[in-house]
C-alpha cells in the first residue's frame, strides 16, 4: 500500500466528515459506535442503514453511500437517537444536513417521495403563509398519481370538520415569497 494513496483517502474522509460537522454541529467524530441510537430508533428495523451505520459512513467519508441511502428519508425525525446518545452526538441534526446535501447534489434515492412532499409543503407555505392540509394532500396525490389511497376516509373527514375545502391565508404574499428567495440564497443547500 503506497503512502500517498492512503493519505488522500484519509483526507477525503476528513473533508466530508468536516463538512457535515460544520453544517450540523453534530460532533461526528465523538461517535464510538455503541449503537444505542439504533436500539431506540423506531425505523431501524426497516431502514437500509441503521443510525450508527449512517454515522460511520460519514466518519469514513463515504459521501455517495450516505447521500444516496434510503435511511435518510426513512428517518421520521423523532430525535430519539440524539436524545439518548451517551457521547452527545446530534445524529438527527447530521441526518438533516445529509438530506439537504443529498438534494443539492441530486443523489436522493429514487424510491422516496419525502423530498417531493417537502417541496409541495414548502411551496404551499410560500404561496399561502399557512399549510392547507386538503390542498397539500390533493397536490401530493396528483404528483404521485397515488389517487385512491385513503380516499374512502374523505367523506367522513369532511363531515367531521377535519378537512376544510379552503384554507386560510396569512400575511403579505409578495413579501413572503421574497423571504423564501432570500432564505434559499443565504442557505445555499439546495431547495
Amino acid at each position, binding site marked *: 500500500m503506497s503512502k500517498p494513496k492512503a493519505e488522500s483517502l484519509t483526507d477525503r474522509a476528513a473533508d466530508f466528515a468536516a463538512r457535515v460537522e460544520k453544517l450540523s454541529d453534530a460532533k461526528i467524530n465523538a461517535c464510538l459506535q455503541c449503537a444505542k441510537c439504533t436500539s431506540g430508533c423506531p425505523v431501524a428495523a426497516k431502514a437500509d442503514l441503521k443510525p450508527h451505520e449512517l454515522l460511520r459512513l460519514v466518519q469514513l467519508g463515504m459521501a455517495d453511500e450516505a447521500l444516496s441511502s434510503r435511511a435518510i428519508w426513512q428517518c421520521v425525525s423523532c430525535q430519539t437517537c440524539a436524545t439518548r446518545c451517551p457521547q452527545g452526538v446530534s445524529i438527527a441534526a447530521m441526518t*438533516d444536513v445529509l438530506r439537504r446535501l443529498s438534494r443539492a447534489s441530486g443523489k436522493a434515492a429514487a424510491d422516496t417521495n419525502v423530498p417531493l412532499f417537502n417541496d409541495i*409543503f414548502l411551496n404551499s*407555505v410560500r404561496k399561502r*403563509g399557512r399549510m392547507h392540509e386538503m390542498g397539500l394532500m390533493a397536490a401530493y396525490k396528483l404528483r404521485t398519481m397515488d389517487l385512491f389511497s385513503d380516499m374512502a376516509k374523505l367523506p367522513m373527514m369532511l363531515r*367531521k370538520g377535519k*378537512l376544510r375545502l379552503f384554507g*386560510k391565508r396569512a400575511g403579505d404574499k409578495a413579501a413572503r415569497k421574497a423571504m423564501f428567495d*432570500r*432564505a*434559499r440564497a443565504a442557505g445555499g443547500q439546495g431547495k
Partner: protein
Amino acid sequence: MFYPGCSLEGTAGDYCKSTMALAGALGIDLPEIPDWICCGATAAHQSDEMLALALPAKSLLAAKGKPVAVCCAACFSRLKAANERIASDPAVRKKVAKVVGADYDGQTPIAHMLEILAADVGPAEIAKHVVQPLTGLKVACYYGCLLTRPPEITQLDDAENPMLMDRLLQTAGAEALDWPHKTECCGGSYSITDVGTVKMLTHQVLAMARQAGADCVATACPLCQINLDLRQADIEAETGEQFDLPVFYFTQLLGLAMGLGAKALGLGALVVDPGKLLADRKIISGPMASPAPCGGCAE
C-alpha cells in the same frame, strides 16, 4: 399570545376548540398572533436551515416579545429550536435578520399548553373547576416525540418518562397509567408519504396502551392524535386485533372534568367514538354533538 399552527385550523379543529373552551373557563387570555405563518414543520428543517429559522422568527416577531402559547408539539419544537439557534449564535441571528427583514433576538418565551395548565394555572386552581371527576377512567398519556425531545431544546419534562399530562389528568380524577410507550414516535407527517411506517409505529403504541389496560389515550399533538385515531380501524382490519381506544386531546378530557360538554370540546370530531366509554364511566350521556368550526381559529 396564541400560536395555533396550521393543523388547528384543519384536522385538529377540536384541539383548538377544546383549548379555547378551557382557556375561557380558567380565565386564560389567548389572543392569536396577528398574521402568524406556518412554522415550516418537518419539511423546512429537512430541506433548508435558513427557512426553518426564518419562518418561526417571522411569527415570533409579530408576538412583540409577549409569551407565546402553543398546542401542537411539532410547532412547539420548531419555535423553540429556532429560538435556541438564533439566541445562541450572533452570526445566525444576523443571517436570519437579513432573510426575515427584521432582527429577532430569539428571546420570546414559548410554552406548550401542557406547561401553562400544569405550571402557570396549577393543579390547585384546576381542581377547583373539576365538577365531573373522570373517576374510573384509565388513560394512557401519550406525549409522542417532539414535546420532550431533544430535552435541551424543549425543556418540557423528563425525556423518557414525562409526567406533566399524567398529573393534570390525575387532578381531573382520571387514573393515569404507567406505561412504556409515552414518548415513542407515531410516524408523524409520514402519514402521507410512508403510510406503512406510520401504521407499524401506531400499531405498537395502540397495542401497548391496550396491554397496559387503557380505556383511552390522551394526546397533546395533532399528528399523534390523527395517526392513532384515523388509522386505528385500518390497523384493526389488517391485524385482526381489537383496540376500541378513543384518542382524545388532553384538553378534551380536562374539559369534560370541568363540565364543559361534548359540543364545546369538539368530541364529535373524534373518529373512534368515545360515547360508549364516557357513558359507561358515567362521565357524559347522550350522543356526541356534531362538530362545528372552532370559534378561535375559524370564522
